[in-house]
């Protein structure tokens, strides 16, 4: 929460430029907006602060594109980096694009471009697109559930499955070629036990929103396939589900089964789109129309806009993730203002009643961005002045 500390200090000292202006405007927003009784006031404002910085940066990038200056980059506050600096950088390494997590040194790109103080920091490895987060390799090796309930689309630990997946997608740095201190497939039980302990500690850190390097495994799929670790990850999924679903906020969402109308759905779609544009695959929670507690939670992979409107492509933990990138399951609003989910086409109705963003989205995104920036600054040797 260092950026909040900076923001607060700016407020008091009134000596920061853009950050200070942003903070004043944020306070104005809080004061003029009705307080949402079930959300976190501090984390939501921290999220808004980073959102504004990200959107400013994107606007500046877009303006630069329009000016047909492909080399132009933006700084911490979204301002274009001076052209002469760009030229210097280009001479040093013409092939080095100064973007978040780029494989360039701080002599080639400014630290504020390599490790931006906005949600672009979530784009690792460098140049990652939102859809790159989707698919089998970035999914847990086990599905949520297909239990003995007739309500198969709802029963399970879906919210935990979605949250833990998002945590690994953002916070884990897999490196198949890096040797782990202990071999988890060793035939020596002592070494194997040490390896299990080592990886369990890593899993605990991710579940606690901390950055981790994960040697030996190529991706989330292979890590969570290993039986020694799958059991522990499945426990984390269940625990995370209960933290969110069994609490007051979770209960409030699960009960909304009446149609909430086009305006509400469009507002939520807009919130989802905003996050996807900032490289955040948010978790949404939705309830079948007319069926209280027939509630499901999923990540949204990406969106597609065409003449019929916007489709939210869903990462459904009950469904094989193999073809997720091609958007086989999606949510859309029709002309009557009804919201439908194609993944529930086998149910008696695919119409959704309640829909909301998970209440943990903002706090998690803020924590993850902050953790990633800390790592980036350290990795790029940007902690020291100069």
């Amino acid at each position, binding site marked *: 929460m*260092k950026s909040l500390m900076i923001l607060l200090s700016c407020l008091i000292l009134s000596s920061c430029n853009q950050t200070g202006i942003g903070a004043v405007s944020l306070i104005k927003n809080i004061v003029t907006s009705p307080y949402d009784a079930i959300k976190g006031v501090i984390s939501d404002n921290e999220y808004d602060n980073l959102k504004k910085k990200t959107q400013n940066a994107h606007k500046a990038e877009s303006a630069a594109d329009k000016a047909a200056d492909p080399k132009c980059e933006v700084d911490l506050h979204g301002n274009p980096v001076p052209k002469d600096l760009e030229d210097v950088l280009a001479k040093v390494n013409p092939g080095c694009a100064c973007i978040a997590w780029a494989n360039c040194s701080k002599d080639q790109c400014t630290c504020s471009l390599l490790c931006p103080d906005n949600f672009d920091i979530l784009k690792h490895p460098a140049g990652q697109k939102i859809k790159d987060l989707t698919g089998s390799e970035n999914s847990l090796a*086990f599905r949520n559930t*297909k239990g003995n309930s007739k309500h198969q689309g709802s029963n399970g630990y879906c919210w935990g499955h979605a949250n833990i997946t998002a945590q690994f997608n953002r916070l884990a740095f897999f490196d198949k070629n890096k040797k782990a201190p202990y071999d988890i497939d060793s*035939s020596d039980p002592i070494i194997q036990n040490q390896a299990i302990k080592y990886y369990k500690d890593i899993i605990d850190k991710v579940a606690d929103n901390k950055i981790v390097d994960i040697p030996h495994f190529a991706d989330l799929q292979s890590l969570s396939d290993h039986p020694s670790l799958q059991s522990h990850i499945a426990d984390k999924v269940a625990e995370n589900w209960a933290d969110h679903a069994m609490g007051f906020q979770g209960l409030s969402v699960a*009960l909304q089964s009446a149609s909430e109308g086009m305006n509400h759905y469009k507002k939520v779609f807009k919130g989802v789109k905003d996050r996807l544009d900032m490289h955040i695959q948010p978790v949404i929670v939705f309830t079948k129309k007319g069926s209280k507690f027939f509630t499901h939670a999923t990540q949204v992979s990406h969106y597609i806009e065409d003449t019929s409107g916007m489709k939210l492509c869903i990462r459904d933990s009950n469904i094989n993730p193999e073809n997720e990138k091609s958007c086989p399951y999606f949510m859309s609003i029709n002309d009557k203002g009804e919201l439908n989910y194609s993944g529930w086409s086998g149910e008696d109705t695919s119409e959704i009643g309640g829909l909301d963003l998970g209440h943990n989205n903002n706090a998690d995104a803020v924590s993850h961005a902050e953790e990633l920036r800390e790592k980036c600054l350290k990795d790029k040797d940007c902690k020291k002045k100069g």
Partner: protein
Amino acid sequence: MISLYFTLLLFSLQAPAFDKKDFAQWEDKILKEVQKLEKTQPEKVYWLYLAGARELTLFHYKEKASQYYEKALKTNPKSEDKTEIYIQLVNLNRDNKSKVESYLKNLDQWFESHPEKATPEIKEWMKVVKGTTPVKNVPPFLLRWATDHKIVELMKENKFKEAYSLVSPEGLEVKDINSKIEYDVLSSLVVGKESPRLYCGPALKKYPNSIAWPIRICRYLTDWKNGTKSTESVSTIRQQLKTEDPKRIFYADVLEKL
């Protein structure tokens, strides 16, 4: 509705929110503010603690969040709805049976004096938490949680047939290893060696050297089904569960019943 005062107060604390290493600094400032206000403006102190508790919950600091909800309760402004606090206290302490029982009692008392706050859905949730609803009547969103807890309870009571009736092989191939072991152990206990297959089998085949407890149980069940002497023993499985996953030590007890 939170007051303008409260909002500004939060932003004037000049400290980070809930980063672990910085939390002590934040707490020190908030507590000084509380000291100033607690006698004159308890409702503001209430909101301060409540907002802190929500943030702590969001950032996964359950114990501290619980303390903040407690502190909010102690300020006791008569006009505020305490339903959120009581529900959160139950959920944040769900692994501590005695605490949950005590918080549920408080929740019952709250609803006795404020019956209009106890919606049918919250009552449903309370029954699930208390374990008084038969699993077949649990709403779908809470069903797996309720079922998993019931199965463990039944296995500990050696009621294997009843537990077996709550599990299903449908879609089990793609579920997690814990679900597969649960099913395989129960089907072995209830159906016997003739049970059609072990769902943990493919994982054992893929990771033959694994000494993870689910694979050890799987290896033990495989050998038992084949009638061969196992390289695994209940005592070594028990020892491993005791160290790694004590809440599942009941598996060692039930394997002895095979």
